């Protein structure tokens, strides 16, 4: 059945819309709305509310014989711990450039991937690293320390 527009009662009445146009527009409108809503849902999917990652808070037994200025790397961890006259501090050994693991040497650290160099207090001495190695939160004492890789502290904080 074809729809004929009805008689207008007054010149101020809007032009009546044919049924087919209305149905067509309704279909198009709901399709776009459904698509946009589902797109938002799909875009949220790749980022989980909680992401799986190993615990980054752990205890470390610092050897008594650790000489001043020599890095102690706990087995299986990307952390370097130093002890000097003022106390104990820990640096992350994840390069701030592109995430390789820096290697401790006599002067500080060196990154194998792109040659960034860091001093023993984490300051960049060489290469492309944009920022210093972060200082990590250390608590405890008497040889047993808790390292929290997720909490960074101000450079120079020693316990």
């Amino acid at each position, binding site marked *: 059945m074809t729809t004929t527009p009805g008689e207008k009662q007054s010149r101020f009445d809007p032009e009546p819309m044919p049924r087919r146009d209305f149905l067509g527009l309704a279909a198009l409108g709901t399709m776009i709305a459904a698509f946009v809503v589902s797109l938002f849902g799909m875009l949220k999917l790749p980022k989980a509310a909680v*992401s799986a990652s*190993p615990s980054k808070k752990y205890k470390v037994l610092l050897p008594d014989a650790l000489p001043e200025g020599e890095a102690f790397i706990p087995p299986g961890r990307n952390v370097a711990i130093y002890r000097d006259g003022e106390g104990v501090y820990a640096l992350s050994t994840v390069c701030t450039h592109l995430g390789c693991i820096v290697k401790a040497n006599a002067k500080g650290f060196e990154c*194998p*991937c792109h*040659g960034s160099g860091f001093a023993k207090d984490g300051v960049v001495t060489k290469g492309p690293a944009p920022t210093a190695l972060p200082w990590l939160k250390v608590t405890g004492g008497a040889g047993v320390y808790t390292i929290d890789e997720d909490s960074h502290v101000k450079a120079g904080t020693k316990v």
Partner: protein
Amino acid sequence: MDEAKRSALNEFWINLKTAPGQIYRAMFRGGAPVSDRTRSSFVFGNVFLHLHSVRTHLWSLKWSTTMGLGLITTAAFLITLVTGILLMFYYKPYPDVAYQSIKDIHFIVPTGRFMRNIHRWAANVMVVAVILHMARAFYTASYRKPREFNWFIGWGLLVTTLALSFTGYLLPWDQLAYWAITIGANIAQSPREITDAMGITEYFDIGGLQREILLGSEIVGEESLIRFYLLHVMILPLILAMLMAVHFWRIRKDGGLAKPKNVDELVAADQKEHYPVFTEAPQKTYQLAAVVKGKTPAVGSGPENTVPSMPHLFYAELGVLMFTVLICFILAFVSDAPLKELANPLVPENPAKAPWYFLGLQEIVSFSAFMGGIGIPMLCWIGLGLIPFLDKETEGTGEWFGGPGGAKLVGWSALYGFATSIAVEAFAIRFGWLREWFPDIPQLVITFVNPGTVITVLYAAFSIWVLRRFNSTRAGALALFTCFLAGFIVLTVIGTHFRGPNWDFFWSPSHWPGH
């Protein structure tokens, strides 16, 4: 035969005997491609072949027009598709297990090692061919109207190809894979270099978000592997296949390959060696477009120097396919795909190198993560996509290097491109860069003034000079594209051959210190 005697059983028997022929004729209605008409129906009656036009211009069949580079890319893709599906029978996308399954494929599965080698080599062939194909399209100015959109599609195909290679790199879960992806994921995070320097990372951490979405976690772990696997075997191949279909279809819709203006004179000699245009009177109007109004490229064109696509084009295509298969077979036979030790998140490879086509990037990343990994590549990528809209001259379309004098310009640009990048690299390797001279320099200065950006600025300056000197956008484009190609080659060679442990410079890998 008498109608009454012809029993249903007899009829059935005859039908059964003729069934194979009937099935064949039901599938191929056009008959053998022996006349122009049946050759045409051979093409337009086939869903796969009808991406081609029924007739092909003699110019398109010349080796020097395309060098078959697009076909090589396609053939390499088909090879990776087949071998990739075969590898999926044994591959298990889970950390550690993945590594063992690759070892199984290498040592236990019959032909597994060969399949993996072919897969790896075909992927390399595809990357090389797609870059050369892009260069071919650029140097013959095939991106111009009406082919701008197809250049755009090709631009997407280049990125998808590189993304496919990159995602495939993680799957073996060996040291090479793990650290290349760690570096790649941190490049995605490198906008932090800017946000950190501005002190706004806390509120606006686009880099961290990119990395987390790519890896699905804070570390390269099981979530990352399944993400890369899904991208590699499903999402990216689907995107690639769709773009390829559009790419091929548009070649036909854009009026075939780009041809020079005087193409009819150039192919006149070849025409005599081929079949005449029509060997029998056509049963349909051959080119309806010739009499209709419209904007499609075929409208208004006169008689053409064309030959039937079957057999001329298809046999050439098959030849290129077999050539590509042969190349991949030989490479797979003489060289094994690498597999290092199991991934170890505590000890990076030294040096940790990405696949060779990313080593140019890795070289400029070693100056600044953001500029090298995102800033300059994005600039190149956007520039490439805009080429058809920035150079709208019509002179020299379809001719190598835009006609006479172009080769000389390209030669000088290449020389400049090589010399500049080598000089800047040599300076940085010999004398170091800003941080070595001024230890307290702010990071933002290094981000914007480093060997990578210096080379980029020198290239841009040169091409603007060329553009003004010859008063031609095409000349500027030729200079810029050639420079960047030269720079890509120089940086890739330095990254591949001259960089060793700690990304230090070595004349040869044999000088690397033991570690």
